[in-house]
């Protein structure tokens, strides 16, 4: 309990982007907001403007029309900005790989190393998405030491 609460001291602002998806991942992301999964207990807040985002949640297979927008949106987000890629399409274009309107996959549309966490699935279960978001959010905070660890370390010394 102590580690989790300490690690999430900031309420991270997350912006959702969909770039040529079937919307299944998107409605499961929305589902995470709803009473059953309630992602807000981990502190994540979904916001309406990319400029204040701490993290981008991105779905979709990157079709030509949408991929340019994704790149623009990433450029507009303040850095550092985490990127959570959700679903088989965002990971490697899924069943739409090699289709004529597609361009390169998400992690080649964005600068190298931009994607922080990949959540596989078609769609991933909400539990998997939350696990991915939490993993990404942990990177926002300095590593939280368990309560009493400092004292223990001092004792050992």
């Amino acid at each position, binding site marked *: 309990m102590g580690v989790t609460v300490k690690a999430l001291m900031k309420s991270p602002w997350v912006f959702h982007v969909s770039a040529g998806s079937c919307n299944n991942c998107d409605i499961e992301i929305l589902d995470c907001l709803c009473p059953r999964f309630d992602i807000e207990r981990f502190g994540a807040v979904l916001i309406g403007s990319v400029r204040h985002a701490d993290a981008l949640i991105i779905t979709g297979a990157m079709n*030509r*029309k949408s991929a*340019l927008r994704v790149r623009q949106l990433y450029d507009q987000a303040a850095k550092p900005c985490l990127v959570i890629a959700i679903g088989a399409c965002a990971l490697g274009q899924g069943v739409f790989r090699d289709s*004529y*309107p597609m361009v*390169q996959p998400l992690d080649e549309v964005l600068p190298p190393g931009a994607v922080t966490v990949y959540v596989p699935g078609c769609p991933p279960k909400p539990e998997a998405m939350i696990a991915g978001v939490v993993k990404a959010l942990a990177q926002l905070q300095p590593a939280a030491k368990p309560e009493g660890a400092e004292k223990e370390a001092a004792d050992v010394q």
Partner: protein
Amino acid sequence: MSSEQVIDRLKNALGDKLKGTFAQTALRIYAEADPADIVEVTRVIHNDLGARFVIASGMEMETDFEVLYHFAFENMPPPCPLVTVRVHLDHEKPLVDSITSGVPAAAWIEREMHELLGIEFKNHPNMKPLLLAEDWPKDVHPLRRGRPWEGKVDRKI
């Protein structure tokens, strides 16, 4: 209503403008028309006989283009047949009149067939691209046979 009764109605309304009318199965009727007659044929089927315009589909064959216009005869007791009218277009210059004067609902699908197959629709009220990105080359029609975009479209942004 049985397919025989629908075929009779079609023959009475259209005479020999509609050719080769036959029932492939109990609820699937196929017929052919000359491209020069298609505006009249579709107008009669849609407005006079009251069938719903379902969609049109285009296809490049080896020696010509086919455009199929699909209609549903729903203003009668079920089961309600679908009627498909086929036209054959020139392979080098596929050109046909737009049917939107009698069937406004065909506006979008004609735009799509123009964009993806390169079929020209004369007198279309709003022939603008519908689906592809702005920078997609206008002479590359992805639904044609083979892979027409290969070597013509840069698949990376």
